[in-house]
């Protein structure tokens, strides 16, 4: 599969009063064309910061992107998103890459009608007239399953239910048929039943529009039926990347293994208590000069405290960031 986005060694820091927050420490991953990548990790692990860094959406100060590249491949050229000028970046945002935020209530402008918030993207990127944008907006709203779109167009976000609001958000992100859709925990704020609908909707759009999709979640449970590939993040670093089945059947990082144990599933013995990983994520204020998981790791040994583990491709497409070989019960 051809790659759409290649992120290498992305390093983002926040310069705060208490010190430097090392939010991302060399994040490397890629997304293929038409592929669905799930990004998983506890909250605070840097999932959102990674995506926002790529799109240049972080507030600066306090954020700085200190290293890395993020190549976006269009027809036959590749551009590094991190080196784009503001104007060039504005042509990528919304046009090439759409972003779905977690909480649609706060992510939609409360004093603008829903319709004009969708339309303005079309006017901006596709040179639509406002009239034409309006027609297209109604189509889009129908497409994402908002009944009575022609009337609801003129309503304000607070007049929508949570699920409907998230649909608006999705319509907005997908309005210009971007090539990549980034969904940052789009269902976290919603009821369980609505969650499934939203998930289905995004998957349908992905198929219909032939998009690539990055789906961010801290819940490994929903990933199985959704993603092609999974990226597990911990304390601002990917710890393991693998095709979804490989990851579930054969996790190679102690953290991934711990996460999977914490997922309730139907086929396991329900009497066995769910395990969770002991301890808390590290304080990102200290610079990462060793494996960040070492404090909580059941397999920790002296090497883990000396170095950052490198990316290790144990099988094609299966990358793990760990010194310890879980399969053989000894260091690599």
């Amino acid at each position, binding site marked *: 599969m051809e790659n759409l986005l290649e992120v290498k060694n992305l390093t983002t820091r926040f310069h705060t009063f208490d010190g430097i927050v090392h939010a991302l420490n060399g994040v490397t991953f890629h997304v293929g064309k038409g592929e669905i990548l799930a990004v998983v990790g506890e909250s605070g692990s840097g999932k959102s910061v990674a995506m926002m860094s790529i799109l240049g959406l972080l507030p600066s100060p306090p954020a700085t992107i200190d290293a890395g590249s993020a190549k976006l491949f269009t027809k036959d050229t590749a551009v590094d998103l991190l080196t784009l000028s503001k104007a060039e970046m*504005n042509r990528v945002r919304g046009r090439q890459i759409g972003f779905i935020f977690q909480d649609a209530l*706060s992510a*939609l402008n409360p004093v603008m009608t829903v319709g004009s918030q969708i339309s303005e993207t079309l006017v901006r990127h596709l040179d639509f007239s406002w009239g034409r944008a309006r027609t297209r907006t109604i189509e889009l709203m129908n497409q994402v399953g908002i009944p009575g779109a022609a009337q609801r167009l003129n309503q304000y976000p607070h007049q929508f239910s949570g699920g409907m609001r998230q649909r608006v958000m999705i319509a907005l992100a997908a309005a210009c048929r971007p090539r990549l859709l980034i969904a940052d925990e789009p269902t976290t704020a919603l009821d369980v039943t609505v969650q499934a609908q939203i998930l289905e909707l995004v998957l349908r759009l992905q198929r219909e529009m032939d998009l690539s999709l990055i789906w961010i979640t801290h819940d490994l449970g929903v990933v199985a039926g959704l993603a092609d590939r999974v990226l597990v993040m911990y304390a601002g670093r990917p710890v393991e990347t693998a095709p979804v089945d490989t990851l579930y059947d054969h996790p190679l990082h102690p953290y991934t293994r711990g996460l999977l144990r914490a997922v309730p599933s139907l086929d396991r013995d329900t009497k066995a208590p769910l395990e969770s990983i002991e301890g808390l994520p590290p304080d990102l204020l200290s610079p990462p000069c060793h494996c960040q998981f070492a404090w909580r790791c059941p397999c920790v040994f002296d090497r883990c405290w000396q170095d950052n583990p490198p990316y290790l491709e144990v099988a094609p497409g299966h990358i793990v960031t760990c010194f310890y070989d879980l399969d053989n019960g000894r260091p690599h």
Partner: protein
Amino acid sequence: MQRYFISRVIQSLLVLAGVLMMVFFMMHLTGDPAGLMASRNASPEEIARLRDQMGLNRPMTIQFFEFAIDVLSGDFGNSTRYHQPAMDLILERLPATVELASISLFISMIIGIPLGLLGGSNPNSMVDYLARGAGLFGQTVPNFWLALILILVFGLHLGWFPTFGRETWRFMGLTLPTRSVFLPACSLSLFTLGQLARFTRSAVMEVRSEDYILTARSKGLSVRRIYIQHILRNASIPLISIVGVQFGYLLSGSIYIETIFSWPGLGNLLADAIGNRDFALVQGIAFFSSFVVVILNLLTDMAYATADPRVRYGE
């Protein structure tokens, strides 16, 4: 929204009823309104006679209801000094105060709001320091002192502006302000200017950090559109209420500025009335100013409700 309006109107009426009571009982704070009203060297017999005359020996509740009925029919009693109905005196002074208040508000708005907007959009820039400085000085420089300094510099030293009284210019049947309003209006506008700059600035900064601005950026909108459509639009809604509140404050008349410049408005009348221990007039002014402020707050809230769709289409 209609429900909201109705409840706001009822609330305002309750406030006015409360004001009526306060104004009435304030006179009884010392226990002897007649003693307050009498001239300083009145003999006890004279005071007693006055007490009788004013009906102060009757039960308090009866006195209050009489007072309330009088006020509701627009009668604040007679000024003991001018021997005229207090209401007439107040209405006579009102135009001067309205002129001064409007011009002060205008000055504050054309300087304060842009300053706040620019400051809030460019944190820690030169304009931002200016906006913050305006806010700080507006709050700490007393306008009665500033007035004195302005008189010294622009009135006495440079001689550019009159420092005394109000002159108007009659043109096609309209009474228009002249240069005489400049110094009083400048002194009076300092506080409001600072408040507007401060408030606008923080409104802009708050809106800038909202999630929907991030969304707007993620859509690739131009900086201009984000600024006008998203930031300014949202930041201007809370501005409605601060402008309304400030106008109420200005309209209640500045006792300092009007006395310093001998500006024939409500504040000046109040200072006079206090100097003359003309408490019927003081009562009248206090109630009238409160009335103006309450009505203005009501109008402001209604404007706000109409401007903000979250209120307009009730939550």
